[in-house]
């Protein structure tokens, strides 16, 4: 078909073409609904599983709840929340995640400011170094840091886990903060400099307030990252300092028998990230867009 035919056919839209276009849009709608269902079902399945007793879960699938709602029970959650191991692991997760997030934000934005607004020789090289470190797999430091932390006497404590997370969170934080901070209008910094403000005051009173959305992005990203970590905590914590993810994975060995603990525990571990995600997803998306390649 030549382009002339197409063009001729496009102007006066016949009823038939309108129907085809309407159906086309209907097909797109349908396809998207099916995809959305596929993406939702796994989480819904986990949620429903977590509301069923162990014996129900052992004999039938979670979808039977849809026809037999009497199965629903909060017992799994009641059991988890009275289990001292789980309770202390939730506390440990907070104890690891909050300091990590604060440290990464503070240290990362200080460094980001220097890379964005302080002219010093070798600045580009420091920035390229950051970009290089961005891609370093965190597995590279497992063995040496296990030994180092052992020598320092912090192997098995939350401190080691925090230090590890901060170190490997920083390249992304610096990259992100530097990119966001460079968008602050230069005139504002000029004016502050002419007023004789110190660099730290400029950072605190000009760049930080304007960069708050960026900081929110970084904080949310780092919070979720640390909250959800399994590998570092698996190696660097013990039974006293383990976070929720490690406590849950220890139940995996008997998956079928422990499905009540596993599903409720997994969903419990998802609640805070999901709240953070839905409340602040705009900032989360910004962090991703501004600095991929983690």
């Amino acid at each position, binding site marked *: 078909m030549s382009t002339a035919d197409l063009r001729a056919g496009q102007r006066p839209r016949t009823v038939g073409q309108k129907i085809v276009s309407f159906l086309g849009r209907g097909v797109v709608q349908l396809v998207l609904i099916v995809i959305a269902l596929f993406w939702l079902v796994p989480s819904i399945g*986990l949620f429903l599983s977590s509301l069923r007793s162990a014996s129900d879960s052992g004999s039938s699938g979670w979808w039977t709840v849809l026809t037999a709602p009497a199965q629903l029970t909060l017992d799994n959650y009641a059991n988890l929340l009275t289990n001292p191991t789980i309770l202390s692991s939730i506390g440990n997760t907070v104890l690891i995640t909050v300091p990590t997030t604060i440290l990464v934000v503070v240290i990362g934005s200080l460094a980001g400011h220097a890379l964005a607004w302080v002219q010093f020789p070798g600045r580009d090289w420091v920035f390229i170094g950051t970009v290089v470190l961005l891609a370093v797999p965190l597995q590279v430091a497992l063995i040496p840091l296990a030994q180092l932390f052992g020598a320092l006497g912090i192997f098995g404590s939350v401190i080691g886990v925090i230090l590890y997370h901060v170190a490997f969170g920083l390249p992304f934080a610096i990259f992100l903060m530097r990119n966001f901070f460079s968008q602050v209008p230069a005139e504002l910094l000029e004016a502050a400099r002419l007023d004789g403000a110190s660099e730290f005051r400029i950072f605190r009173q000009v760049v930080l307030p304007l960069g708050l959305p960026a900081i929110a992005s970084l904080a949310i990203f780092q919070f979720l990252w640390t909250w959800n970590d399994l590998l570092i905590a698996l190696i660097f914590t013990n039974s006293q300092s383990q976070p929720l993810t490690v406590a849950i994975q220890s139940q995996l060995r008997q998956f079928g028998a422990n499905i009540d603990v596993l599903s409720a525990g997994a969903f419990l571990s998802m609640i805070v990230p999901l709240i953070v995600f839905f409340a602040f997803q705009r900032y989360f*998306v910004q962090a991703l867009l501004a600095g991929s390649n983690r």
Partner: protein
Amino acid sequence: MSETALASQGGRADNPASPASPPTPRTASQRSQWRRVAIALGFLAPALVFLGAFVVYPIVYTLIRSLFDRSGAGFVGFDNYARMFTNDSTFTAIRNNVIWVIVAPAVCTILGLIFAVLADKVRWATAFKLIVFMPMAISMLAAGVIFRSLFQENPELGAVNAAIVAVENAFTGGAANYEGANARPDTGLVEQGGSIASEAPVSLGDTQDFALVGIRSANLPDDVEQAVEADAPGSDGIAGTVFLDVVSGGGGENGVIETGKSGLPGMTVHAVDASGNVAGSAQTDAAGRYLIDALPDGEYVVALPATNFVAGGQGVSWLSSAFITSVVILSYVWIWAGFAMIMIASGLSAIDRSLQEAARTDGASEWKVFTKITAPLLAPVLVVVLVTLIINVLKIFDLVYVIPPGASKPAANVIAVEMWTVSFGGGNDQGLGSALAILLLVLVLPAMIINVRRLRQEKQS
């Protein structure tokens, strides 16, 4: 931070020197440069300490450690690297990582592209994106628990197999499967190779009943009825009744159709001729009756083929060695397709729409608009997404650690899990572990170089 450091932009000669600093032969511009270095160091120091002590130093340490043996006492050169490729489990891990890197980022990117383009066309695009993007927020551990549960083998428990079995049953008309059935002894039946057949050939016009035992009542279909004697067939047919030769509650006479015995519906019955060919077949009705007619003259062995007695609808062993990597990659796609979609959607929104509109009014088809205009303009974003995902996939750990049950763990192995296993999870060989960590680092290098290059290009433009 030095509050006294009165920074000033640029190194102007008229810059007032700090009163505290003694006069030096250096020029004012040099002085202010040194001051800026000091300021920068003040801001960068905490980051440099962390990165130096906990990232750069460990890289060097691991590199050196990889040249020593398991205890770290003896220098072994490149032995650990050689072992990596000769050790079966490590080699499986490397091979699987290659599969991961080829498949997972590409699938995520393609799906992300499709989702982004399609979502652009509907009003509820934001809701759709939120749904697909949500798994990014949850831990891979939780995602692993979800997928392990979805893909359980028992169709009563695993949602995926439940769906497959439901579809299978819809296509086979819910054919019954009488697992474990046997012929009642001394009722003129023989069992051969899983099938149950009449001992002697049956003439046309005769009947042949099948008295079976060994079927659990749970395996009976819901629509069973009292077994009924079949009507005598015509002169070109064979008829009979297949029934469960058990009266619930006990009693009754073996091999006889009587009250309390169920017919076995949905049973396939074959009439097999002298040369072993199936000349005709029929299915039993709710009362267990069958009629095979229009048979050519002759005598036939009437048989219930073995397919009646296999356990039907068992579902696929998704978590077995054969499928495990596919399932784990699928769970990864579930998490990361949303990331690709968000990145690509933002790339799409940055494209000047007038170009596409112009092409459309020129009569270009949607496909042409996409391949000739949209896709080339999106190329930089696609590269970013692919590189990000490749870096991410190379070090995949949690999902592979969580989803496979013990038996298929070796088949699902990847480098990061192998590294954990050999150095912490029982192997206690930190020499080999270090070499694996360095291998991960080397594999990431190309992506690193692409990143730095892109950064420099951005700077120049």
